[in-house]
């Protein structure tokens, strides 16, 4: 608590504090001395939302305000794919083109949208009413095909529904009136009592306990609960919090990573929709532990429809005095939170890229010269944790370690949220206890003839029938090969084409790479070209070997996790489904002629025959 008091003192605003309203004091501009540039994304969103695009004069205005060159602002705008430089239509439609969407009829939906709106994918119709764009996973894999119209969700689409929606929009019905309210689809919670994540929770439940526990107490509880980063890296939460607590530099920052971009993952969406309070209290607990002054929720642009709900929860917390000055009644602990909208970029889920983005820059991951707990947001000590981690942290404090560790395995206590989608009858959220086997999970969701299972999204691994009895756990023992699941299981049955799946992922990484390092920018592009070759039936055994070698090369040399994991699935699939690939390549015959499609290569020239 002493730390927290010192913070306030260091801001030099201690004296003025009492004369001002609490709202005025706890803005990040005051507390963190944020430079104006950090507002860049918000300003760009304002322009984008009000006019449907960002004009040259908007860019010059921002450049003048922030004292930047125009090219720097343009660099930021062009990085995020929800920002447009030309009018994007009165109604901007983003149709999801992720793999689950492809399974559920993406092509037909695209045709239907094109037919109904008169816009061609990637452009605006001649009247300027509808803009039709494609976007990777929007976190609604349990109710695909899905699209966002002016960032309102429309789920379980079919051609009739599309026709009726577009007709209504043409008649002038507001989007907010006809949009869907995505179901959370919580299909299963642990059989013991109420589970962990969705049990009853009253705002303030954990706050009273905090001052009793003290910062050290919270760290102890985190250590005993063995809570580890639920974004998928499983870095022990207590170690991160302790490292940040030990940093002497003030003020400190807490960031909640709600940029759930990994295709196939939607657990954070459900958590924020159902229990945003636990996320907020997890952040408060972290802030209290490390002595932070301010928190950010970096919410992905695709989840804009959740923003109102989170803002409402934050307001409630402020009203009750759980946020702001002497938050939760803990004297000297001043903490507030705001939501920052992302603007369409997968790589911003990487913590340092997220920090850059919060600072109003391009979301390029930093080098590992410093860790965020040393120099993060505005070079201040920063803790970045996933939504689920904060929710779990709040639950651990609420339930107590003893109750929490009743769930799961001794080495991996607790439960885990898994987003299940693809070929199964019951897609949705499964709160499993660590230790459940893959087969049990697939039985629960009534998977249809599972054959190829994508675990933890494209950057995770591929599982097959031989993995059915492996337990899902954070830390296994010596005898079982556990599956370390980051939160998504996407099921594909035997009728699905593996090359199509891998191609979808390759396209995703080629366009989502931030472009800063060579292996990820160029390498993923090269892999995509090579997979095209495979898809066209032109590859031979050497090409498969190239794919394997080049994937390792990209993994070994990339700058951040995106490049390092982009080709995980590819490499594993090449091994696990070797038979499939042998069937799909051209055998090298004795003259070693590569298959080359002469007909398609001369096709264009043939059009001059007349």
């Amino acid at each position, binding site marked *: 608590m002493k730390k927290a008091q010192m913070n306030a003192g260091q801001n030099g605003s201690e004296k003025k504090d009492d004369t001002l309203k609490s709202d005025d004091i706890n803005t990040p501009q005051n507390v963190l001395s944020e430079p104006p540039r950090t507002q860049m994304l918000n300003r760009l969103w304002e322009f984008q939302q009000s006019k449907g695009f960002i004009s040259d004069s908007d860019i010059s205005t921002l450049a003048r305000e922030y*004292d*930047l*060159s*125009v*090219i*720097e602002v*343009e*660099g930021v705008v*062009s*990085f995020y794919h929800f920002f447009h430089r030309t009018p994007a239509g009165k109604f901007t439609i983003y149709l999801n083109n992720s793999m689950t969407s492809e399974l559920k009829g993406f092509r037909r939906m695209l045709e239907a949208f094109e037919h109904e709106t008169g816009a061609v994918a990637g452009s605006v119709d001649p009247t300027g009413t509808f803009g039709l764009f494609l976007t990777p996973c929007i976190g609604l894999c349990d109710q695909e095909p899905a699209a966002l119209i002016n960032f309102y969700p429309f789920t379980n689409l079919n051609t009739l529904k599309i026709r009726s929606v577009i007709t209504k929009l043409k008649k002038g019905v507001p989007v907010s009136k006809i949009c869907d309210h995505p179901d959370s689809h919580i299909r299963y919670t642990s059989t013991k009592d109420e589970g962990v994540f969705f049990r009853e929770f009253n705002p303030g439940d954990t706050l009273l306990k905090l001052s009793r526990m003290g910062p050290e107490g919270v760290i102890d509880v985190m250590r005993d609960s063995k809570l580890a980063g639920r974004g998928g890296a499983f870095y022990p939460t207590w170690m991160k919090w302790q490292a940040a607590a030990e940093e002497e530099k003030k003020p400190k920052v807490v960031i909640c990573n709600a940029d759930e971009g990994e295709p196939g993952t939607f657990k954070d969406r459900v958590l924020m929709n159902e229990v945003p309070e636990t996320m907020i209290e997890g952040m408060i607990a972290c802030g209290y532990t490390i002595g932070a002054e301010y928190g950010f929720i970096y919410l992905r642009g695709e989840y804009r429809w959740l923003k109102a709900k989170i803002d409402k929860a934050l307001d409630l917390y402020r009203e009750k005095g759980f946020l702001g000055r002497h938050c939760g009644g803990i004297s000297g602990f001043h903490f507030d939170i705001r939501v920052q909208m992302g603007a369409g*970029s997968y790589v911003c889920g990487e913590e340092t890229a997220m920090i850059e983005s919060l600072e109003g820059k*391009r979301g*390029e991951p930093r*080098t*590992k*010269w*410093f860790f965020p707990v040393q120099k993060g947001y505005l070079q201040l000590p920063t803790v970045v944790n996933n939504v689920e981690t904060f929710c779990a942290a709040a639950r651990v404090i609420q339930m107590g370690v003893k109750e929490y560790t009743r769930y799961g395995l001794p080495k991996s206590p607790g439960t885990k949220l898994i987003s299940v989608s693809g070929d199964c009858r019951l897609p949705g959220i499964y709160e499993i206890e660590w230790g459940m086997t893959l087969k049990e999970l697939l039985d629960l969701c009534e998977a249809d003839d599972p054959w190829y299972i994508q675990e933890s999204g494209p950057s995770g691994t591929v599982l097959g029938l031989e993995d059915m009895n492996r337990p899902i756990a954070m830390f296994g023992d010596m005898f079982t090969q556990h599956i370390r699941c980051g939160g998504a299981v996407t099921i594909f049955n035997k009728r699905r084409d593996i090359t199509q799946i891998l191609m979808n992922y390759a396209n995703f990484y*080629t*366009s*989502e*790479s*931030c*472009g*800063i*390092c*060579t*292996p990820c*920018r*160029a*390498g*993923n*592009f*090269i892999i995509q*070209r*090579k997979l095209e070759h495979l898809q066209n039936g032109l590859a031979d055994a*050497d090409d498969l070997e*190239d794919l394997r070698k*080049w994937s390792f*090369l990209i993994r*070994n*040399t*990339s*700058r951040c996790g995106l490049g390092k994991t982009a080709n995980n699935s590819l490499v594993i699939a090449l091994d696990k489904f070797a038979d499939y690939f042998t069937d799909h390549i051209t055998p090298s015959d004795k*003259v*070693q*002629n*590569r298959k*080359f499609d*002469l007909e*398609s*290569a*001369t*096709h*264009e*020239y*043939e*059009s*001059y*025959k*007349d």
Partner: protein
Amino acid sequence: MAKHVNITIDGRSFLVEEGKNLVTVAQENGIFIPSLCYFDHIDPPLGTCRTCTCKINGKFGPACTTKATEGLTLEVNTEELKDTRKALVEMMFAEGNHICPSCEKSGNCDLQHMGYELGITHSRFPHLFKDRMIDYNSKRMVMEHNRCIKCLRCVVEVFTDDGKRVFNYQCRGNETYVGVDYEQEARLTHEQAVNAMNICPTGAIIVRGESMAKPFGDRKFDQTSHREDFDEKPKSTRKPGKKTPKVIGTVSLAGCFGCHMSLLDIDTELLDIVQLVSFNKSPFTDFKEFTKRCDIGIIEGGCCNDENVETLRKFRENCDVLVSVGECAIWGGLPSLRNMVPLGECLEEAYLNCVTNEVGSNVVPYDEDLPKLLDRVYACSEIVKIDYNIPGCPPDAQHIWKAVKNILWGEEYSVLYSEFKYD
């Protein structure tokens, strides 16, 4: 005084300053780690090009963004790492459209130099031929996006006097490019502009009137090299032995016959050649068809039409070993300049919209007897399996002959730096 720590580089121990980046540390101790984005005064280092990838405490990592700490182990020159770094530079050549013979920066280019130093003969990756623009809009500079390797140097180094950026990344993914702010560029002093050109490791930033200032012989990399030949000795499947006569076939596909001309430049060794080999299907003999099986087929040029493809396939069927000679055969070379533009546009520009067209003759030629143009120019290796590549434009006569002798009779040889360096 700075604290010192013990580190191990390739098994040797060194006492070095703590916290310094490993590229500098290695350099200070006489160990060369290749790097393209690294600049000693940019702190912290950029870590964008990744060509300094080493093994740090057993794990792959970039040397430039890793600090020296007590007990650190650094592996630099293992076969695996050398190949990894080479692959990264090859990747840059495959990603960009680097046409060295027509580049103002040739001889002053860090990327080109790195290619030579690492002994790159060809890129293992297919060239991507992405359509990129050349930006002539600024007053003084030309931004050649085809040559940019996105190292970030200019972005973080070039500022106007009042601290505004002149360059910045635009877009992302494979669309990433470095954009120029025309307004700020105009405010740079001439010296600052030239500095921007000089810090660019390739020829992406060119200041008009300054690019060819240095004559051949005085360019940055005309003389510099720390090597005379290359460590990597070409492997031969045959054991050296008596030279039995062999049969050679040669062909020029989409090439200029320059590689064939180069072969004739071999002077007195021609006498050797006549005794040791006979030419079958080849422009030298004017045999139109194969009359017997060849030991080796020498291919010049890539494939730009269906006839090239058929000829190349015949060569594959009739030769034991196929060798791509020269850039055009290896990756497409000069004819592949059209790969950045769709075929239709090329034809229309050449035959329909061309100002020198005769009146009434504006039609794209098409006849059953004419070879059909492919959608783009293909490297030979994209169509048949190629066993060896001999780079150069054209390759040196000695170089070709040595390589052929090595392949046919297992004769050992080394490529001299002077034979390998063409500009």
